[in-house]
């Protein structure tokens, strides 16, 4: 653990590419999602729109959470059935 430090100049090409922010890809979409939600919730709060605050906000929190949880469950399932192990060894 103690000898695992690296200088930025010694990063591999793959690591360098992973440090880049994909503004036109998933990274940008996730940033936009946050900005859109902040505007919608703020608008709903100041203009007394019950649907946005009472239904949409908790609904979105639940939807994303259930989605992430299901994604994890499918990963555990595919790992248990050996699929993931095969993929990983291929990658390495």
């Amino acid at each position, binding site marked *: 653990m103690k000898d695992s430090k690296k200088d930025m100049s010694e990063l591999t090409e793959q690591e360098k590419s*992973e440090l880049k922010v994909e503004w036109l890809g998933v990274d940008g979409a996730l940033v936009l999602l946050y900005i859109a939600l902040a505007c919608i919730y703020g608008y709903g709060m100041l203009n007394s729109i019950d649907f946005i605050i009472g239904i949409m906000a908790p609904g979105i929190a639940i939807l994303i959470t259930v989605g992430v949880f299901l994604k994890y469950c499918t990963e555990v399932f595919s790992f248990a059935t050996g699929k993931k192990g095969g993929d990983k060894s291929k990658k390495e």
Partner: protein
Amino acid sequence: MTIIDNVVVVVCFIGILLVGYYFSKTSQDMDSFYKANRALPWSLVVGTLMASWYGGAGVVGTVGYSTTMGFAGFFIWSIGAHAVRFPLALWVAPRISVKAKGTIPDLLRVNYGKFAAVLGAVVIVISCLSIGEIAAVGYVGEGAWHANKILVAAIVVALSIGVTCLGGLMGVAVTDMIFFFLMVTCVSAAFPKLFFSVGGLDGIKAALSGPAPEMLTAFGGIPIPQAAILIILCINLYKDPTFYQRFAAANSPKTGKRAMLLCFSIWLSFDVVTIMTGTIIRVRDTALAVQPEVTYVATVVEYLPVVAKGLFIVGILGAIISTLDSYYLIGGEIISNDIIYMLRGDRKLKDKVSITITRIAAVIFGIIGLFTAFRFDRVYDAYLFLSSISMTLLFVPIIAALMYDGKKTTVAGVASMVVGGVIWILFQYVCPVSISGVAIDPVLIGLPLSFVAFLIGNRFGKDLNAERRLKGL
């Protein structure tokens, strides 16, 4: 709480301990115990980041604070808090994954030398006591069972220690995922009924326009100095050791980054729920005659059906457990792998000894936390106290270590920490400053002065960064 709800609570917690026990068989060496073999997938990183951040202070504490902040809690605290953390997700998290594969003291050691690392390690270990979380447990116990808060806190601390000692990071991450799911779904599912019971936003505005009209405006519920403190404390996450551990344990740099970016949207939506719940609590008790945290738990329990009540309590207590076990694990890791390692003259401990020390440390953290947690009036006050002092000391040297690749000296690291600490103690205890009757948190003064001390200190001593490059480390 009915007998069925109590059975649900007991069964869920036995299940969680069994998960920890399952992972205890696979976490026998240091890399698996502390870093989960650096194999955490995206979904698990989202769950563990979410649950570790949104503990008792995040849920029960936010509800309590929102009873006086109102809408400003969303516009200043929530939007501001997450906005200033975007650089952490976009640029710092991937760098942690490839650059800081150990702990924060490891990072400090490489950039500023041994003394700075020991000093940083001690500060982090103190912040790992998580007294705000333990204080929150007491209010949940009072609200759900009218039980003695210290007794409930002791049970929850014992469970947290159990999960930490058994499963290591993988056990903590998997239980975090389960708690994250229960916490968000149960707290959010209980909200619409509560919200419409007071007549929605029109009902809230009608009820509060007389006693607390400032709560209904975007920036009115928080005095300006307090708002500034909150925004600055939001960047506290940049030096949070549990986040470093998660990013380092993620299976790729992109994993940690994208997990955190998604967390922002969940946090924002969940903040609306908790902040509006706090506002509703104020509508129901405008004089705030009862502790709002206790009223919140009691109110939600009253509104939910049987079984859902039990799951709600598991979700709330689970949020607290998942935060506590995360901090106990990282605190124990820092004691055994950093402090003891350095005190032994850089000799590594054997894997089994290191894990045993971490387990003992987790027990000690729990005991100290129980003795200190209930000395604060509000959950958030306990959280803010520890955040404030640790941020003043650590923020500047950690961010410089991660984001600045130029010259770095021992004097710079030590000076920024010592100046930050001294200024914090001076303005907290000797000459506190207040503007318009609102106390100014010493972090506002300590942070810029810590940065100045870093710049001046960086002019003295050897460039450790250049030395490291020459050695090819």
